[in-house]
Each structure stands twice: as structure tokens, then as C-alpha cells.
């Protein structure tokens, strides 16, 4: 087939990119080769718009065993054990087909983890939707995650769900997974050993998902719905078998390298393994297990059929590998071999269909320094309105906020996930950070997933820093030391300079904060072109940060008993009117957005974390909850779920609304029997804080001077908190 300009455009390649292909090959590509290049050089696979900026992120630290560039990052957790973790997005497929899009998102990230030899032990999801009334997408996504994770047998231990109208045409589905293994059992995706067999295992190859990676690299238009056949269909049972078989096969010692077939399937797994190992891979497509007859080389190479892995075994030991896969009832066949010439060579029906140097596909992809020398996109006013309307009824506002889609309990969602399977979940959904114990050692792993698109929209750099700070604060609140991070960068069209500027600023912010909090980035994902019909999303980095702690019962969020001292670690940190516009009160009650995100002093923030961890280690915290969205009043309300309330007193600040609901970082609400000891620790870390009240039965009261600002029954708070989501979602069912 002749390669026409139309064909090049259809493959989402530019003329310049095509010319580069011709020069790398020294000839015109075949149609099949064009397809292979188009997926490997897609934004999704090549990170061509973000790569030069991602390079600026910190990736090294004393816990890091494997940084970016492998299927997942790996950190040491002590005792010769490691955890592998990563986050991936499945935004585009989840919009087109919510159930399967989300399900295969979970499947993909799980394979990334067990490809490394690590057994997945936890999943978290960061979800963003347009309106809560967009049920088809929300219920489909949640059911898809439940379907895949529950059957696979990995607990879904936490996450976040946020609603903003900018996500209505571009929901975000970011899935984080974490697995565990011994350090000497890690597997890498580096092919080696000339003549070693290349073995295909798992599901048969079908026509599903062809060009999924390219689909994920373009904006949505009216025609996008026609791409539904591009969304793959997941089979969690098959994935569970694949997990058990792979882990068992790895124990034979006969496996040299292994990589899952994710985006761009057979193509990416083979050329990446070859490129990393500096060798060639020769594959005969006639040997690939196929779901249907008559598939072309092009289709097989670009198929994104799920639950498939490619591995390189030691020559002569194939049978040991086959035996394991036979036990689990899975296909395993040799489809090629490792060669010395560095080429990806694809044979089909006796013909060579593609012959491309592996580095050309994996490493020579274009890298763009896209124009970004403008202000990041924003249209919200910078200044606060002249008058911020005073609340007519603070009690009613509090109840409305605690029952608002962003702040209400997400139980309706997480109750559909098995968050307990494997019996390691010490703190599950609804906690500040999830905590999962590692049974084999006395160590637990804590993890927090956080993003704030609204903050990042107002100031990408500060918003990104706040997201890192919040994750680390969540971990410290449970007593864990933050040690490493992964990130998912969700943005609009990078070819627009004001969007590219958002991305560049965000990456700079993440870099600054991850250096400061000593949580190097070990991997992640970039999802661009999150625009539908020209409307983009807020710049939304989602951070997943992992912390370590000794295995012990984690500090709960809820107040535990009456008569405990309520201590505000970090102090009041009043919000000014300009920064009040980025918060939940402005969004929900005033229906406005203005100004800047909260002010973050990273040095102070880190000292608060250190003090908090010491307070937990000393056994002084009976409950603890960080102050984030909705400020002090919401954090206190969220701590009232066990029917125990509190009587609090706050100093006169700017106005009752700002004092109660103003969002500022570096603050944690603790209950304790020993405020003097808490204070000593606090002073040692040069942090502010004080006792602001006492826990009482059944009522949340917050007073200022001689005025009672808030006085609501915990029963009412709990009802609003717990029933908001089911009421909104099931009213329409």
C-alpha cells in the first residue's frame, strides 16, 4: 500500500514525524510499519510533549530501587522486601465505555505491577466526573472497577471522587496499584540472551483495542463515540490466572525478562524489551494465539486485547515455563527469539511485514519542547469580590457542605469494592491514608492519592505543591513516613501554549515539592488531550505517595470518646479573602471561583508532618484528621461519625465563614488525653498549635468570642454525610 499524506494524517503523525521515520529506516515504511510507528510515537506511548519536562523531576532517594522507565517504580521497605507501585489513567476509554474502560484500566495497572514479580496487594482510584447527575458514567466506572478488582482479588483501599463541570466531557479515571515481593525476586523487562525464546502467554489476540493508544492521544469530537469498538474488554478471571501463573513461572528461574502487553500490545512489549536489553526481537505472527482467523499483521501488532504477557525465557528451559501455564489453563507458545541485530522483525505468512530498529520505536520518538511561554490558562478573576456575602445560617451551610458531592461520604462507591480481601487492610476507604500491612514483616505500607484540579487551575505550580503536601500530610496523620511518589498528569491539549504552560508549571511544582518532602517520583503517567469539543479540563495532577510505618493499629479519623482534648496541630492559619475563592465554600455555597489556592509554606508543612509522626509514635493521638477541603468545620464534622462530637472555640479571625471553612494546609486535628505532651513535641518542631476544645456527646459546637457559630447534632451531620450520595444517585435509578 502506498503511504499517502491522508494515511499519515489518519495515523496522527505529522509530515515531519513521517520524514523522521523515513530517515530512521532509510526507506519508506510499509503500511504495517506505519501503524507500528503511529502507536509507539503516539503521545500516550512516547510522552513526546512531556518527556523533556518530566526529566526535571527528582527520581532518586535512599528508598528507591527502581525509578521511572520500567513497568513500575520499586522502593525498599526493609527486611529484603520491596513494593512496586504506579498510577495509570484510563480517561478516554472510560468516557466512551465507562464499565469496560474503567475495568481494563484496573487490569492494565495490575499487570504493570505483577510484571515486576510483585503480587498486587492494594488498589486506589482517583475519579473525576462532571456532575453528580452524570450517573451513567459514574455508576459504570464504579461497577467496572468493582468487577475487575473484586474478582482479581486485590483490595481497593482508598481513593478520591471529585465533581467539577470541566470533567463532564472528560471524566478522569486514574488507578493506582501497589504490589509486594522480595528484592531479589524483582523482574525487569530487559530482553537478553541471543537465541532465547520469546514466549507469548495469556489471552488470545483479537481485533479489540486497535489504535487505543492513538485514541488516547487525541481530543474528543462528535465522532468519538464511534470509537467504542476501540475500547477493550477485560476478563479479570483470566488476569487472576495470569497473575498466579506468572508468579509461579518466575519461581522456576527460567524467565529472563517479562513485560505485559498494554497500550500498543505486542508491538510495545516486544520493542521495549528489545530496546532496554539492546537486542533484537524476531517474531512470527503465525504462531500468535488468535481469537479469529484472517487477522492481518497490522491488526495483530496493534491489537490491545487484554490479559496478555510477553516473556523471554532461557533457551532449553521453555518446558518448565509451559508446564506452569498449562497448570493454570493458559496459552503459552514460543512466537520468536532474541536476536543480536537490535531490530524488531515481524514475520507473517512467510513474509517480513516489519523490520524496524527497536531504539527507533522506543527511544527515537520525537520529543517536543512545545511553546509554553505564556500565562497558564485561566479565566477566573484574581481578586475576591468586593463583598463576600455573609452567611445567613452557618449551621445550614455546614450541613449543605458536608452533604455536597465533593465532601460527602463516598461509601456508596467504596462499599462496592472489596477493600478487605487478603486481610491486610488496617485502614481502608474513608481514612486519610490507606494502610496495608505486609504480613511477612512487621512493616506496613501507607498510601494516599490526591489531586486538586481547582487549585491547579488557579495556580498550577502552587496547586501541584499543595497536592504533594496533602498526600504527605495524610500519610503523616496515620503515622507513616512518606518515602516515594508516582503521579498521573491529566491535562488538555499540549499544542495550546496556555495549556502547555499549565503542564510545565505543574511539573515544576511537583519537582519542587517532591524534593522538599523527599518523595522522589518513581514513575507515572501522562494523559493529554483531555478536551471534548474544545473544552479542556482543569490541569489535574494526581499524586500517589507511599509511606512506611511499623505495623500497628492506625490512628482513626473519628473521635473516640467524650472528654478528650481537641488539639489543632499547625495552628489556625487564617485564610484571606483572595484565597477563600478556591475553596469548597465558595464553590458550593457561593457558586463562585476566584483568587488563588491556599498559601503553602513547605518548610512549616514538613515540620508539622514530623511533629505529627512523633505524636503518633508516642501513642498520644486517639484520633487524627487533616484539615483539607472545607477547612476546620468540615474536618471536625468528618470526625463526628461515631456519634461523638466536640465543643470547640476559635479566635476571631477575618469572618466566621473564612474562619470555619477557609482552606489552609499544615493543619491536623488531634484528640488526646495528654495535651501537654503534644505541645512539647510541637514546640520541639517549632510548630504552632493549641487545645481548641473537648469532645462531647452528640453535638458539634464551634464558638468564637461569645458567639456560637455552629451548633449541630452529630446525628444530622452524619445523616447528611452518609445519605447525600445514595440519595442523589438512586433517586434517578
Amino acid at each position: 500500500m502506498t503511504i499517502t499524506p491522508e494515511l499519515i494524517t489518519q495515523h496522527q503523525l505529522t509530515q515531519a514525524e513521517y520524514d523522521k521515520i523515513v530517515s530512521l529506516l532509510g526507506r519508506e515504511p510499509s503500511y504495517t510499519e506505519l501503524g507500528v510507528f503511529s502507536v509507539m510515537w503516539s503521545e500516550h506511548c512516547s510522552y513526546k510533549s512531556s518527556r523533556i519536562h518530566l526529566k526535571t523531576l527528582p527520581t532518586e532517594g535512599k528508598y528507591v530501587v527502581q525509578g521511572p522507565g520500567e513497568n513500575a517504580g520499586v522502593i525498599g521497605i526493609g527486611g529484603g522486601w520491596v513494593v512496586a507501585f504506579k498510577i495509570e489513567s484510563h480517561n478516554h476509554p472510560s468516557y466512551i465505555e465507562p464499565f469496560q474502560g474503567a475495568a481494563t484500566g484496573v487490569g492494565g495497572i495490575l499487570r504493570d505491577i505483577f510484571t515486576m514479580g510483585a503480587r498486587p496487594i492494594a488498589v486506589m482510584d482517583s475519579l473525576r466526573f462532571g456532575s453528580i447527575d452524570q450517573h451513567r458514567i459514574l455508576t459504570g466506572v464504579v461497577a467496572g472497577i468493582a468487577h475487575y478488582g473484586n474478582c482479581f482479588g486485590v483490595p481497593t483501599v482508598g481513593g478520591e471522587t471529585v465533581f467539577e463541570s470541566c470533567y463532564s466531557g472528560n471524566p478522569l479515571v486514574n488507578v493506582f496499584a501497589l504490589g509486594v515481593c522480595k528484592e531479589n525476586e524483582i523482574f525487569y523487562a530487559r530482553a537478553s540472551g541471543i537465541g532465547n525464546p520469546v514466549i507469548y502467554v495469556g489471552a488470545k489476540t483479537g481485533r479489540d483495542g486497535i489504535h487505543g493508544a492513538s485514541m488516547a492521544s487525541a481530543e474528543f469530537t462528535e465522532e468519538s463515540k464511534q470509537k467504542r469498538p476501540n475500547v477493550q474488554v477485560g476478563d479479570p478471571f483470566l488476569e487472576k490466572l495470569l497473575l498466579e501463573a506468572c508468579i509461579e513461572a518466575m519461581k522456576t528461574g527460567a524467565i529472563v525478562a517479562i513485560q505485559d502487553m498494554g497500550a500498543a500490545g505486542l508491538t510495545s512489549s516486544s520493542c521495549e524489551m528489545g530496546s532496554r536489553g539492546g537486542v533484537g526481537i524476531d517474531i512470527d505472527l503465525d504462531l500468535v494465539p488468535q481469537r479469529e482467523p484472517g487477522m492481518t499483521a497490522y491488526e495483530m501488532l496493534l491489537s490491545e486485547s487484554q490479559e496478555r504477557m510477553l516473556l523471554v525465557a532461557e533457551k532449553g528451559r521453555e518446558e518448565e515455563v509451559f508446564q506452569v501455564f498449562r497448570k493454570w489453563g493458559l496459552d503459552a507458545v514460543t512466537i520468536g527469539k532474541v536476536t543480536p541485530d537490535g531490530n524488531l522483525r515481524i514475520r507473517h505468512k512467510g513474509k517480513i511485514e516489519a523490520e524496524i530498529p527497536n531504539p527507533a520505536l522506543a527511544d527515537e520518538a520525537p520529543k517536543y519542547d512545545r511553546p509554553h511561554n505564556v500565562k497558564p490558562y485561566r479565566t477566573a478573576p484574581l481578586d475576591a469580590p468586593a463583598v463576600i456575602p455573609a452567611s445567613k445560617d452557618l449551621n445550614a451551610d455546614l450541613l449543605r457542605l458536608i452533604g455536597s458531592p465533593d465532601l460527602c461520604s463516598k461509601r456508596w462507591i467504596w462499599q462496592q469494592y472489596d477493600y478487605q480481601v487478603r486481610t491486610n487492610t488496617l485502614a481502608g476507604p474513608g481514612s486519610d491514608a490507606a494502610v496495608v500491612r505486609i504480613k511477612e514483616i512487621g512493616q506496613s505500607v501507607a498510601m494516599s492519592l490526591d489531586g486538586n484540579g481547582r487549585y491547579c487551575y488557579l495556580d498550577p505550580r502552587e496547586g501541584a505543591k499543595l497536592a504533594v503536601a496533602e498526600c504527605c500530610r495524610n500519610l503523616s496523620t496515620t503515622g507513616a513516613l512518606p518515602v516515594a511518589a508516582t503521579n498521573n498528569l491529566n491535562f488538555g491539549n499540549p499544542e495550546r501554549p496556555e495549556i502547555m504552560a499549565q503542564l510545565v508549571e505543574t511539573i515544576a511544582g511537583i519537582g519542587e515539592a517532591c524534593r522538599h518532602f523527599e518523595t522522589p517520583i518513581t514513575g507515572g503517567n501522562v494523559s493529554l488531550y483531555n478536551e471534548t469539543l474544545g473544552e479542556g479540563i482543569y490541569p489535574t495532577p494526581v499524586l500517589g505517595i507511599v509511606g512506611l510505618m511499623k505495623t500497628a493499629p492506625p490512628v482513626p479519623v473519628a473521635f473516640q470518646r467524650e472528654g478528650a482534648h481537641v488539639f489543632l496541630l499547625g495552628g489556625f492559619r487564617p485564610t484571606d479573602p483572595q484565597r477563600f475563592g478556591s475553596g469548597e465554600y465558595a464553590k458550593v455555597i457561593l457558586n463562585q471561583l476566584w483568587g488563588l489556592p491556599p498559601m503553602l509554606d513547605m518548610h512549616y508543612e514538613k515540620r508539622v508532618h514530623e511533629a505529627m509522626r512523633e505524636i503518633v509514635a508516642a501513642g498520644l493521638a486517639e484520633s487524627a484528621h487533616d484539615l483539607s477541603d472545607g477547612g476546620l468545620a468540615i474536618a471536625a464534622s468528618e470526625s463526628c461519625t461515631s456519634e461523638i462530637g466536640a465543643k470547640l472555640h476559635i479566635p476571631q479571625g477575618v469572618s466566621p465563614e473564612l474562619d470555619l471553612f477557609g482552606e489552609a494546609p499544615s493543619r491536623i486535628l488531634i484528640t488526646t488525653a495528654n495535651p501537654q505532651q503534644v505541645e512539647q513535641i510541637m514546640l520541639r518542631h517549632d510548630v504552632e498549635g493549641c487545645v481548641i476544645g473537648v469532645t462531647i456527646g452528640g453535638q458539634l459546637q464551634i464558638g468564637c468570642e461569645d458567639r456560637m457559630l455552629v451548633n449541630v447534632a452529630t446525628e444530622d451531620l452524619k445523616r447528611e454525610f452518609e445519605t447525600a450520595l445514595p440519595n442523589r444517585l438512586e433517586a434517578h435509578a
Partner: protein
Amino acid sequence: MKVGVIVFPGSNCDHDAWYAINNIQQASANFIWHDSPTLGDVDAVILPGGFSYGDYLRCGAIARFSPVMRAVKKFAADGGLVIGICNGFQVLVEVGLLPGALLRNQSLKFICKDVALRTETTNSPFTSTLTKGQTVTLPIAHGEGQYFADAHTLDELEAEDRVAFRYIDNPNGSARDIAGILSRERNVLGLMPHPERACDPLTGSTQGLGIFESMLQSLAVPAR
């Protein structure tokens, strides 16, 4: 007490059961692969939770044909203790060791949460150390846990004191709030809640231990 934990392709609570049993003094667990024709030297068998064969066709419908199930049936017929948890309960009804069926939850959604159960009988090797009427709070995690049987069967179960546990606040629409039932010989228990998930104070509860301790005790002092 030596306990065999059956592993079907797709079982995913097998490790949890194994871990819970091995943490009990005087008890040990080992895995039995689904195509094993024999059970080996065991005093009791656990059919664990999970999604055996992906729960394709119907929950437990394919697992009942696994070679090991012949051995389990024989073991049960000989009076051996068999406990089916969640997917294991579904397999037990499919294979005919227990009556009834498990349908999709009334909400049509998977539900994972702690539920309070009332102990309905202590006359069984699984409940002998509990007291009648005792509340036991255990986690559930299932999409198809709505117990169903015809009225005659339900009457019979009640008349024969074979309802082991009832939900205090029925989460899934189960007939007569039934959460777990016994075989006529009382040596086979099927229940949807997960006692193996409630055997460790660190993960929140030890209220599941009573079931395994009852088994241990009844094996030490044979009732018959």
C-alpha cells in the same frame, strides 16, 4: 486440627483462610489444588471465597465439577467438617451438599461491609462455643449472596434447627434473613460472611474466631 483449603482457579480468599487457620494454636492449614482427586490427611475442609472459574455461567456452577469436589462430597458423607465461605457456600449449594441457591443481591450491587449476625443454633460443630442469640459481626463481600429456597425448604431448615446465622439487618434480600445454613447431618456449614477476615485484632475484629474454635473443640471431643 488439620484443615485443607481448596484452591479453585479464581479462588482469592484461599490465602486469607490459610493465614487465619495457621494463626490458631493447634490448627494448621494446607492448600489442595482443585484437580486433586483426594484430600490427603485433613480433619476439616474449607471452600474459600473468591470467583471460582470467574463465576462464569453461575457462581460455583463450574467449580462443582472440579475433581476435588468428588472427594469433598465423600468426606462430607463420612462426617468430615466442611465449611464453605462466600463463593464456597455458592459451590456447596451447586454441588448439592446444601439446599437452596444464592441469587444476586437485591441492590444488584456488590456489597463489602461489616454486618451483625445472630447465632441461631449452637448445636453444630461450627457454633458450639458461641451462645444462642449471640451477635457476631463479620464482613460480607459479595455480589450474589441473596439466599433463596422454596418455602418448604425454608420451613424444613428452620424445623431442623439448621439456620446457623441470620442477618440482623438483611443486606442482600436473603430469604428469612438467612446468612448461613447447616447440612442435615450438621457437619457442613455454608455462610456468606467471612469469619476468616475477622480473626485478627489488627484488621479490626476477632469475632470470626468462634467458628474455627468451635471446629477445633468438636474435633478434639468427638460428639459421636
